[in-house]
């Protein structure tokens, strides 16, 4: 912690960490409302514990909360199937861009992976954590991380082939 006002310090952290955490949540969930809830809830927990959190480790700490919250949430709501999202309609209304297509594509592909594989792939290849760090964050073994990453990559490659994206 710095000698600054803790609230100001926390506010700075939120501003800095929000894009990366939202992106992590978005890649894992593919849902706006859920991503928002996960990150917001994680920040609230971090706020409560802020005096005990070392600034250099804050991002990893909150990212771990996001992942754990998602695991808890998934257990509670895994039988829910969203029928639609407002944001998708709004985006459709203003017209698609190449960025949106791109975003939709990777998020859609990730949704095909099982929960654990998706988390491992996102933490390993987006958050750039080491295999050991991913294992610690998810509370699983190193072997399970390696296996999930390998299968996840293979599945993504197969999916792009199946959907014909590989023909370019």
């Amino acid at each position, binding site marked *: 912690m710095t000698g600054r006002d803790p*609230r100001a310090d*926390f*506010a700075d952290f*939120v*501003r800095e960490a*929000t*894009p990366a955490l*939202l*992106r992590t949540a*978005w*890649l894992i969930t593919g849902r*706006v*409302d859920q*991503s*928002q*809830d996960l*990150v*917001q*809830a994680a*920040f*609230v927990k971090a*706020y*409560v514990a802020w005096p005990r959190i070392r600034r250099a480790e804050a991002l990893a700490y909150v990212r771990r909360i996001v992942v754990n919250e998602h695991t808890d949430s998934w257990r*509670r*709501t895994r*039988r*829910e*199937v*969203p*029928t*639609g*999202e*407002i*944001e998708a*309609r*709004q*985006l459709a*209304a203003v017209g698609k861009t190449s*960025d*949106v297509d*791109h*975003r939709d*594509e*990777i*998020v859609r*592909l990730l949704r095909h992976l099982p929960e654990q594989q998706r988390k491992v*792939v*996102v933490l390993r*290849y*987006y958050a*750039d954590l080491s295999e050991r760090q991913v294992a610690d964050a998810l509370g699983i073994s190193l072997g399970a991380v390696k296996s999930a990453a390998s299968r996840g*990559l293979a599945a*993504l*490659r197969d999916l*792009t*082939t199946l959907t014909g*994206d*590989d023909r*370019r």
Partner: protein
Amino acid sequence: MTMPADDASVERRLRESMAHVTLPPTLTVQLDDIVRAGDSILRRRQLRRRSAIGVAAAAVLGAAAVPVARHLAASTTPAKRPADTPATEYVGPGIAALMATFPSGAHRMISISDVGRPATAYRIGSVDARGPEPVTVAMPQAGQIVTGHFGGALFLIAGAEVNGYGLRLVFPPDRQPATSVELQWGTLVGATLLWPDAVALQGFTPIGLVFVDSNAGTYDALVMPSPPAAVATLVFRTQPSPDDPHADQLLLVRSGDRLQLNKPGASPPPQPIGQELAGISGGAEAPRVAYGWAPAAISAHAPGQRKLVVTQRPAATGGVLYAVTAAPAIPKSIEPLVVTVTCGHSSVRVPMAQP
């Protein structure tokens, strides 16, 4: 996204894709909300610590304190017991327990917890000690739904599970979101409580819900083999407003091959929905019922050269029964018949399923 063949290239391409993924513009978090919720937790922790200190001090009093404590508990518990206030019960195909609430950040301010082990009720409360008194709603049986308001939020809890229902929201005329979100689809599936909190709806509280069976094609075929097929729609009356407890109600019922809109009228208030059903849908088919608001207008468009008839007659319940029929039947190959029911400034579009 193109995935090259070798692993190293796949990794590189994946990293690149994820690093440049574009977030939806509405995906944000609010620092103010975070700080407010965090402060609320810290305050409650402080209160709990004070309570724990009080308990420790009381224990010193020993056995003599116990009868006093029991007496106090017996006299104070009823006064603090949450009101059991289900507003409407619906009996029909089972729907999983779920909840919808849309005020800004409400899902972060309202907590739901099970009561009893195994759970026999849901307790809906505020995480803020200054919030409204909690409400306890008995866990509905399969096929029953209860709705009500809590802290400006609309909640709905149903028993058992069903798939394939869509949800539209109805907003009060003077408090509507942007036109594009006047009626929204939500999630109405699953065995858990549901907290849709779309950014576009934050700050807007729906006053009604319209449920549409998105499996209408297959489901209706089971219960309604003869054309023209009718609507598979559920609208649930929300808890009566304290300002207008006798507001007119609209009842939508699928009866045989017709969509019926029943306006029970302001007085007497509508009968319990289960009783209404007994006289209207009958038979073994799953009843589809809707409660909403008094319709100011009903309009409908029938594709092709079909004749559409809207009739009304006195209902057995004392109100007016509207019926919409189309002839000849509408085949699947053309656009569905949509009936628009207007209540004040709100319109509910009711698609009628095809055979």
